[in-house]
């Protein structure tokens, strides 16, 4: 994705912060922060932290926030969709780190950022993000996508050590999926 120049200048430093703020939701599922909150907080951080964060401009932040909020909305749309529903454009967002358009057209690819709860090798129940890759074709329905991702992550977590996986554990649940075209 070609970000606008001002957003591109802030991207590597501010993306993590903006992405967190744009995706944060309350227990009721409402977004916790709006653009004014984020701009105000970013301005304050740029003054107090300095360093790379001193590089700040409100227009760039608002452009980044817009991209991040689109991703959050796509995740919310996918999460609330009927399992039998077809996956449509409202459920997929383009990642700001996506490949050039010509590469995407030549070989479509998606990253499904999945928040997963599992019991790790040490017996601890943990919640982490995993990324599942999808090449060429998306599953036809939301339910298919959820079950294939769940099955894929379960296979990864339960694979034996001789198969080269660094993690071993027991999948408890896939709590959310955000589908990004890359």
């Amino acid at each position, binding site marked *: 994705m070609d970000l606008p120049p001002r957003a591109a200048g802030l*991207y590597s430093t501010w993306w993590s912060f903006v992405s967190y703020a744009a995706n944060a939701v309350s227990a009721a599922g409402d977004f916790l922060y709006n653009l004014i909150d984020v701009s105000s907080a970013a301005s304050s951080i740029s003054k107090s932290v300095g360093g790379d964060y001193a590089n700040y401009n409100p227009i760039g932040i608002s452009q980044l926030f817009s991209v991040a909020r689109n991703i959050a909305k796509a995740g919310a749309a996918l999460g609330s969709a009927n399992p039998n529903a077809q996956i449509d454009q409202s459920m997929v967002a383009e990642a700001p*780190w996506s490949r050039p358009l010509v590469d995407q057209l030549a070989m479509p690819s998606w990253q499904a950022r999945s928040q997963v709860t599992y019991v790790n090798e040490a017996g601890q129940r943990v919640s982490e993000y*995993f990324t*599942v*890759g999808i090449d060429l074709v998306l599953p036809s329905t939301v339910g298919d996508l959820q079950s*294939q991702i769940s099955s894929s992550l379960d296979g990864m977590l339960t694979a034996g050590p001789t198969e080269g996986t660094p993690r071993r554990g027991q999948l408890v649940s896939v709590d959310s999926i955000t589908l990004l075209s890359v």
Partner: protein
Amino acid sequence: MFAAGSAHYLKPSGGGTTPGTVMFLTADVSQDVAGLDVSAGAVRWALRCVYRRHRRYTGQVLDTCGDDRAALAAQVDQWACTAEAAWLYAYDTVAALNATQLAEQLCALGWELSRQFGTSPRAMWVVLHKGKRVTVRHDRDASHGGAATRTKWAHTITIADARALSVLAPRDGTAAATDVSVMAAAVLALMDWWDAQNLGRWSVTGAALGWRSYRATLGPKSVVIDHDETLLAFERRAVYGGRRDVAVVGAPGAPRYAELDFEAAYPTIAAACMLPCAYGGQLPVEAFDPSLYHNPSIGVIAEVTVATDQPRWPARIDGKVFYPIGRFRTTLAGPDLEDAFEAGAVVQVHEAHWYRMSRHLAAWGRWVGQLMAAPASVVPEPVRRAAKHWSRAVIGKFAQRGWSTRPWVGPPCDGWVIEQTPFLGKTHQVVTIGLDGVYYLSEADQRGDHERPAVLAFVEAHVRVRLSRLIGGLYQHAVVQWDTDGLIVSLPRLGELAMRRGYVTNRAGVRGFDIDRLLRQWSQVCWPLTIRCKTIMERMVLYGPQHVVSDTLTKLAGVPHGAVQVRPGVYVGEVRPRLGRASPDDPTGFGAATTAEFTINGPYASGWVLADGSVRPPEASVTPDGRNRLLPWPHTRWAHAGDRLGPLQALWADGLWRAIEPQPPPPQQQQLPVPGRRDEPIHDQAGTITGRQRIHAV
């Protein structure tokens, strides 16, 4: 027929040498050092740089230490920039990079992640480079029509794990983690020897070094590597790993056991036996001729249906490997197939392919065998340890999937991301690695330049057939456990059987059992392999073939090396649940090591465990659509014969039996069972292993 035209000859090793500039790093990963302000990012580290070959500094050894991460990175950067290619060895790469943040700090100094990296459950290696120079090529155009360019780097640094070379003695492990001189001595000894042998370019892992050593013995056009995925998949079906199981669960027979094993089994087979070197073609199954086996230049892998009363041939059932009895469909490589035909067990041949056979591994097998057997005064100890590792790893490499790496995309991040990235619809492993926002995707998608799984299938089958001769031979009632290239026998029972057959010594007027002569006879039966007595044990408890606890030997698969027994059947060991940071959003950094309890609550037998502890092989049948299935317990011949099933079974048996109410234990028997029938109760008073016991082998 498989597709033709996608094959190449395995190339002999080219030239090259070991690294000229080598650094060694230790870091106090515990972060528990008095007087150190860990919260301020301090970590105690020690760094040594050895200039082995350098235009200005050859022979210099420089040492430094400190507790500042930036200072470490600055020192590494300075030394690495004196050479075109430098190597840095750490004892535990993940822990050292985690504690020192060396990679991130190096990125801040202008180093970049390259597409060369590797991860495994326990270790990782990565290549960084610095000083990019892009030159325009005049000999070709780029694919998009413009001028083609070539990228060169002024400096590269390979960060690798010293443990991956398998040169450190177990007793040196702790010392090497904290003392650079211990690690440096072992690694440099191997490097010096490698150069003296003129074995070519250096590699990051022990397996890769072993592979190069094999290719150094290879003549041109000796081995053909095919890339046809269907062919590779067919060959891979004949790869099962070693034969392993137990004859009894619990404390078997009278006290005193011997662990016997084939000396250097794989390299010995490699040295003496013809092995596949090229695919020949498909054979007609209608008139399949078993006499092909008598032609040593032809080897066959075939998918057959077997009907047998002996648990002797492997088969995959629901993705797991069993040695069943009954009727089943399986893919067998030469020695196993010949054995099955000779036993009259093959009832139908479904698909068969032939291979050209040669002794392409013979020179390497002899050489590695000699290295392993050489005295320490002739071959340095680290070399002998490395050779032992190569002896197992090189033949396995023929079946290892190839990896391909491509640039990938991900969000901006500070520091590392190492993430296993499953892809929908792909069954092979995919790993993403990222450093400071530069990502690569690496997948084991079978495009290796070394894959000929038929070689491993034949070697495994050769060893398996010889092991089966002992397990199913005249002394079978003395054998209580077997695993790939070794077995455990009850010595009193073996002695009784052997003395009946005349293996008797008379020392100082006392008649005894001549185990040496018996083992010589066994070695003749198993030629070219020779069997030796490795360990004598007084008492032992068997949970499964890879779970053996005795007074002198402890094998507990799945329990980490160095785990300590805290109470009977429960071990505490250190685990690192995650190799790397899960994603840029993961604030926890590299996975920290933590302790976990491991409970040994078998049985882990691959057969049915009866009430008296003895083990019966599972029984299989073939469904009308040609799939293997295991018979539920009530339908097995054992149930029909009145055998009583024990209260606990291994996980594989879930759904095939119904748990029964526990019965009061039978009185323990003091006497040896009469040999001749395996179904007699075999119990004794072998004690539980108690106290704190360190795991030496897993």
